[in-house]
């Protein structure tokens, strides 16, 4: 009886413990990394990386000549601005479970981390490959918004080319 009580108590304690929030790691690699307090945000900080920078998150991989990352008062990285020869690689799943692989190049990109949104500008060129459907979307644009969490993209002044495998013609009886 005593043992049962102890087990029940332990189970109750486990159930009462608050669930830990999922953590994600963001990694920035560069020959030079600088940190300074953000003059606009008390308690905030700015990280500057230069000399060929790679940013790796669970969702996206960005390479650029230099990057500036803002960390807010709550100590989370809010946004990263990548400048010069930006190359982006990422993947996401649409609402209907289709995996999309994104590849893009542009002159400047801002990655809004909390929204998982990318704003690309300056000679944007990219492809979105849907693996299961074998569908490829090629685009050139002045400006592009990519929402990595949602099945949503927006382009300004864009040329888009869809490539899909030809469907076999229905059999005629």
């Amino acid at each position: 009886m005593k043992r049962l009580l102890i087990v029940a108590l332990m189970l109750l304690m486990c159930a009462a413990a608050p669930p830990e929030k999922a953590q994600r790691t963001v990694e920035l690699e560069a020959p030079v990394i600088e940190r300074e307090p953000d003059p606009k945000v008390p308690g905030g900080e700015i990280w500057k990386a230069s000399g060929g920078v790679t940013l790796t998150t669970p969702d996206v991989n960005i390479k650029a000549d230099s990057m500036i990352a803002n960390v807010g008062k709550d100590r989370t990285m809010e946004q990263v601005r990548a400048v010069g020869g930006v190359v982006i690689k990422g993947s996401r799943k649409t609402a209907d479970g289709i995996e999309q692989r994104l590849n893009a190049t542009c002159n400047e990109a801002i990655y809004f981390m909390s929204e998982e949104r990318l704003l690309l500008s300056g000679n944007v060129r990219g492809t979105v490959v849907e693996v299961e459907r074998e569908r490829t979307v090629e685009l050139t644009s002045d400006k592009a918004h990519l929402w990595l969490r949602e099945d949503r993209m927006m382009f300004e002044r864009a040329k888009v080319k869809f490539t899909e495998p030809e469907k076999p013609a229905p059999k005629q009886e």
Partner: protein
Amino acid sequence: MKRHIMLRRVAPVALSMLLAGCAGGRLGEKTAQEKREAARVARERREDRFAPVRLRQENLKSTLSDEEGRPIWEATSKLIEVEEKTKTGRLEGARFIFYDNGKPALEARAPLVTANYEEKTVQLRGGVEGISLTGGYGFRAKEAEWEYEKKQVRASGGVTLWREEWRVVGDELTGDTALNRVRLVGKPARLMVTQKSK
């Protein structure tokens, strides 16, 4: 029989000559050692003449202040040797608190420290560990140097700087005393940020 008698006469003489030879060799060596020792003592005496004040103190706490009496650094160590001629202190097992405008900014510990009281520079060696007293950043490096004039910290050799949610590693670090502004150089330097998903 004759040969036997000859051997009995010659053998002790040869043996004594051999022993004398060995002893002579040892004697020559000892003289050279003595000469070297004498030279060493004379050199030390000469050095002592030029550096008349050499303070050696154990478990010492010392503070260096500026003209206005504001502390520059505060040091505690297991052993300190101060040489008046060069105005340097050699500290073992030292803990330093570096001040910025009279406020404590950085605490650093190292097994070996050389502090120059005139130039107000401190070199920490043998594995340095520190903590920023204003920002809460920790740092670790093989070596570090602090300069009062520049109010600057330089660290090298496997540098790690961290706070609760991030860690940055590199080969060299340059920063202000409180490590609020830092620059890390590496091949490459790497920043890792752990953040909670919203």
